[in-house]
């Protein structure tokens, strides 16, 4: 067995490399946490976001009521400080369902829609942006034209248009949000690719004989990914508001699913007798989106100060 020591030392090399990588990552992460602690508002945003995530994950354990089945005899019970009934802390809606329960379940919808729509947009946008920016050529001009065309549509109008023809439903909702959502990530990554690929470190990698895939994955993308992450966080709040707007108009998910937007919409009909039915789901959206935006703006200040205010 002559190859034995070779394999062993190769393995040891790999372990050694990974140990250094892990230490670097851990160091970076600790640095990041230290910088984050200098941004108290971003910390607040992060903590609120985690609370939302936890309540969405453990909705079944937190709540005792049924989010979909109501009891009409219990309709329009006021919040606890008006009615004094702790069974329904935020009151009940026009079908006698506990509002807090529905809001907690609604967090699931908003967060899943937010993560999925941003996630898919990121994957599509980064993939196309990398190919277009790195290789250029006909593919680049084709996708760039398509991106320009999609930018001619206001986001919400486009999503409404797509939903109008696809019809309501979860998959359709994600499709409607991502059909145009990838464009911003595409433009970001394409631009960065164009700028990075002429730099010396890429040239150096090329001279050492690395292939395109290795250069893109190992050299360039790690330098870009932070900007993508920041933009993704900042876009998530917008996606959540867009989903809520679609649900409000009745174009999002089927009406029996507790989505915050449709909860606000149904509460509108009983606004004269029960102000709380519309008010609290809207507050839930507001706090979540604020938390995400605070966290995102903090991230931007730490990771990528170049990305400027654009709303």
């Amino acid at each position, binding site marked *: 067995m002559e190859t034995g020591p070779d394999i062993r030392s190769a393995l040891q090399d790999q372990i050694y490399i990974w140990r250094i990588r892990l230490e670097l990552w851990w160091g970076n992460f600790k640095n990041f946490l230290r910088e984050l602690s200098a941004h108290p508002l971003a910390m607040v945003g992060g903590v609120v976001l985690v609370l939302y995530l936890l309540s969405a994950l453990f909705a079944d354990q937190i709540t005792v009521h049924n989010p979909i089945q109501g009891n009409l005899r219990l309709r329009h019970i006021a919040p606890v400080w008006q009615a004094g009934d702790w069974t329904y802390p935020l009151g009940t809606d026009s079908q006698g369902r506990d509002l807090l329960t529905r809001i907690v379940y609604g967090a699931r919808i908003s967060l899943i829609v937010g993560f999925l729509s941003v996630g898919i947009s990121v994957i599509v946008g980064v993939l196309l942006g990398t190919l277009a920016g790195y290789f250029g050529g006909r593919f680049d001009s084709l996708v760039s034209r398509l991106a320009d065309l999609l930018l001619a*549509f206001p986001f919400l*109008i486009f999503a409404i248009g797509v939903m109008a023809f696809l019809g309501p439903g979860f998959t359709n909702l994600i499709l409607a949000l991502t059909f145009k959502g990838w464009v911003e990530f595409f433009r970001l990554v394409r631009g960065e690719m164009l700028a990075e690929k002429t730099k010396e470190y890429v040239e150096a990698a090329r001279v050492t004989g690395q292939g395109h895939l290795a250069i893109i994955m190992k050299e360039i993308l790690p330098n870009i990914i932070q900007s993508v992450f920041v933009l993704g966080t900042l876009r998530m709040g917008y996606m959540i508001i867009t989903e809520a707007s679609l649900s409000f108009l009745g174009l999002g998910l089927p009406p029996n699913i507790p989505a915050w937007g449709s909860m606000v919409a149904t509460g509108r009909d009983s606004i004269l007798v029960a102000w709380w039915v519309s008010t609290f789901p*809207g507050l839930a959206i507001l706090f979540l989106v604020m938390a995400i935006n605070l966290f995102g703006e903090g991230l931007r200040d730490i990771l990528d100060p170049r990305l400027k205010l654009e709303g």
Partner: protein
Amino acid sequence: MRSIKILERVLATIPIMFGVAIIVFFFIRLTPGDPVDIMMGQGGAISAGELDRLREEFHLNEPLHIQLWYFLRDAARGDLGYSYVLKQPVTSLIAERLPATIELAVGALLFSLVIALPIGVISAVRQNSWLDRLSMSTAFLGISMPGFWLGIILILLFSVQLRWLPVQGRISLGTGFQERTGYFVLDSLLTGNFAALKSSLLHLVLPSITLGAPVAAVIARVLRSSMLETLRSDYVTLARSKGVAESWVVIKHALRNAMIPTITVVGLQVGILLGGNMVIETVFGWPGLGRMVVKAIFDRDFPLIQGTVMIYAFTFVMANLIVDVLYTYLNPRIRMQ
């Protein structure tokens, strides 16, 4: 040089308009199944005779590229199809609702500028003062708030509780209002009807605030940050050291240059105005384009949806064109080339 740049920019919008029309054309292909069958399913709003006309109008029996050709040809002629639910050409339906939508958009834009310009300037000049912190927190609230919810809260507060402002619609009954142009504020002025003027203005307040709030928030934030930049620039320092009065420095030197990036952002916000329009018109029962589309969606009135989405996109493209032209005028670096 400048006029060539502007001409180039104007010509560049033509292929974009075409592309927009093509994308809208493909929207209807997204429907699962036969669009005509789906339209038929809407409670018999469409008769059997119309069904054939409808198939013919969409040219559904022709190959796809022929369908696209007909669609583009008709659109270029200004024919956006026929609404079988409302029994009217789409173009005339849009023309009918457009004044209401424009009136609301103008109200919203005015509101946002009146709020955002002074706030952006003062926050930058008095950076880190309590006023700056308060306005920037409010602006942050503004970009994080869903518009439809803000509208409902405002109705709850100002219409239901305080009874200061009307809940819905564009004008109260019994003002003796006569419609002429479709712009109610203008019509009231033209007919000298001050009761109607007051009523139409009061009806505009809440929808304009709701629609304009996120726009105001974005403008204030961008203006503040670009003002902070210009206030630190060399030419401002020079103007100050020459002894130019501080208010003049702020307005003439800092604000003027800070407006350049701000204008671009205002152009992008037109997209928010247009998109928010569907939602806000629904909240306030405002009889404009947005409410018409939302109703058309539930009626499965495909030609009407197609036509209106196209008009929205065209408006957005035009708004960005205007912004680019303005930008060329405002930016001395481009002007001097």
